[in-house]
């Protein structure tokens, strides 16, 4: 069966883990890995796994985009260079999946709004953040039952699971996630907190979601909605699990989640890495289906 050929930009934790996810996909094929450091472990691993590589950034990829038939690119670099990467590649008709906090395109959380984005055929979709992917489905699960005035999420991640790019840019992470809690989650006001825990052995990614509902929470409906949403996320992240809750306290709803990863590039504690790469892969697959079926026409190269 024909697969859509993909390029991965950024050879850090996220880019490297994406190779595994995309190689397993029936619809996607990883062809290029782009880095900026010839000696990076990610580039070496990509070569070992059969990908073509360049250490000259996106400019090193551009001459090969058309001849290699690249139609989807995943950007796992940083918010600062994403726009430039995106402009160069979309000009060649490549659809961008943005895993940086740049968020120049619409925000995507697969079980909440992927179908809607795929129908519109956007050329650049943003995956928000690992915390966003792990928590916004739950915020939405509550807000689709009744209106939520405020939602707050706390993501705890193992120190070993986050790379230097995320560490040095926590504010972008916070701003992007808070905004997405509102725009995608459906809360009128959103707030995101992140905690980096260095415990050994590393702790599993944990997320707590608090929602304040305008009216008294409909407990039965919210429980059912949350369970249904968890099932949707489990389709692409099997280790997405409810630990405690929903706990109802006045108008406050608290849900305590855990994300166990598949253990591809990093061990299973790095659920934060998995939920991001799995969501990005699922998003790309939805577009790939559309492209292969002729429903989605990518813009012709300029």
């Amino acid at each position, binding site marked *: 069966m024909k697969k859509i050929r993909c390029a991965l930009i950024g050879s850090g934790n996220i880019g490297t883990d994406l190779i595994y996810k995309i190689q397993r996909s029936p619809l996607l094929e990883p062809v290029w890995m782009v880095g900026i450091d010839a000696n990076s472990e990610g580039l070496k691993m990509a070569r070992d796994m059969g990908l073509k590589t360049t250490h000259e950034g996106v400019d090193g990829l551009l001459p090969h985009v058309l001849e290699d038939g690249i139609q989807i690119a995943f950007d796992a670099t940083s918010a600062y260079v994403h726009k430039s990467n995106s402009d160069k590649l979309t000009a060649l008709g490549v659809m961008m999946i943005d895993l940086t906090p740049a968020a120049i395109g619409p925000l995507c959380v697969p079980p909440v709004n992927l179908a809607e984005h795929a129908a519109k055929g956007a050329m650049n979709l943003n995956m928000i953040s690992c915390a966003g992917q792990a928590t916004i489905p739950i915020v939405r699960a509550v807000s689709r039952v009744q209106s939520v005035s*405020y939602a*707050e999420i*706390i993501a*705890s991640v193992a*120190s070993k699971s986050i790379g*230097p790019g995320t*560490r*040095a*840019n*926590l*504010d972008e992470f*916070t*701003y992007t996630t808070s905004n997405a809690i509102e725009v995608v989650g459906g809360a009128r006001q959103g*707030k995101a*907190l*992140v*905690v*980096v*825990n*260095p*415990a050994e052995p590393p*702790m599993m990614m*944990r997320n*707590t979601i*608090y929602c*304040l509902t305008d009216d008294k929470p409909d407990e039965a409906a919210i429980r059912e909605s949350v369970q249904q949403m968890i099932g949707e996320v489990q389709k692409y992240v099997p280790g997405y699990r409810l*630990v*405690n*809750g929903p*706990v109802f306290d006045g108008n*406050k709803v*608290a849900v*305590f989640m855990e994300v166990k990863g598949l253990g591809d590039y990093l061990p299973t504690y790095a659920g934060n890495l998995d939920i991001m790469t799995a969501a990005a892969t699922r998003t790309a697959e939805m577009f790939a289906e559309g492209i292969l079926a002729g429903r989605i026409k990518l813009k012709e190269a300029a």
Partner: protein
Amino acid sequence: MNNDGFIDLKGRKVLIHDMSLRDGMHAKREQISTAQMVAVASALDAAGVPLMQVAHGGGLGGNSLQHGFAMHSNEEYWTAVMPHIKRSKVSVLLIPGMGTMKELQSAYDHGVRSVSVATHCTEADTTPQHIAYARKLGMDTVGFLMMAHLNTPEGLAVQGKLMESYGAECVYVTDSAGYMLPEDVKRRVRALREVLKPETQIGFHGHHNLGMGIANSIAAIEEGASRIDASVAGLGAGAGNTPLEVFVAVCDRMGIDTGCDLFKLMDMAEDLIVPMMDQMVRVDRASLTLGFAGVYSTFLLHAKRLGAKYGLPARDILVELGKRKMIGGQEDMIEDTALTMARERGLLNDKAA
């Protein structure tokens, strides 16, 4: 050092940094009124305390379901206290992942001139943006390494050096759990002193959970620390911070120069701070557990409240949190842990499970 091993600290200058109106917010479940803030800030200023922290207990961005909503925004507190401060400077706490540079800019715009940029003691590389931004604003910029007992002296020195490289002018050993003994403090301050530039200051922030606040602060000074965090009558998380007026009295006896007026501070502790306390801030069963088990001091009141809600002793919850290696900022895991423990003990009805 003289012949009998006594280190003479006579004439050493130490900058005292008051915590009553930030760490003290934790002890008050974030419920301090602007009138109380003004009264305390004015009294600190009159007593010659050179630097005071004023904010939500979690610092910038602290207002949340996770950390509680204060009676007022940080901006309202700063606006209220600034006109009453003649000599002192106001500082704030910024924990990346919670506080952001936007909020730091707002603090500066409201007259705040010093910031402690805080991380867990192994995660200094989450602070470069915030430290650089504070320096760009011209603020007195401190790197604040929390739960410092969870890193080795050498490891802590590496983290402190990172913060210095980002622009921190002072690096703190922060005993958030009140777990350290004087020798633990000395080793960490010494390790920092060995690697930091001579002009980079060292500070110590203690909690009194094992009753060691003053002894640990003096130990830090012996190894070269020149800033000490303390709060009047100890108003702070857990069994409180190093009690400021007691520390000033000890400094007076030792000839350490703090520039503070001891009698004014004593009066303030007795007449102003103690009457504000909802519960006596002291070493009790639960706060002693924090110090003994090495648990983040702010967890205390949450554990007491949730222990009562789920029928569990606060001490059991705190010990379990210590075992699970939870750190500052993970207050949500207190309820999560309590729920799991309550289920295991058969205390949950089906509805809450």
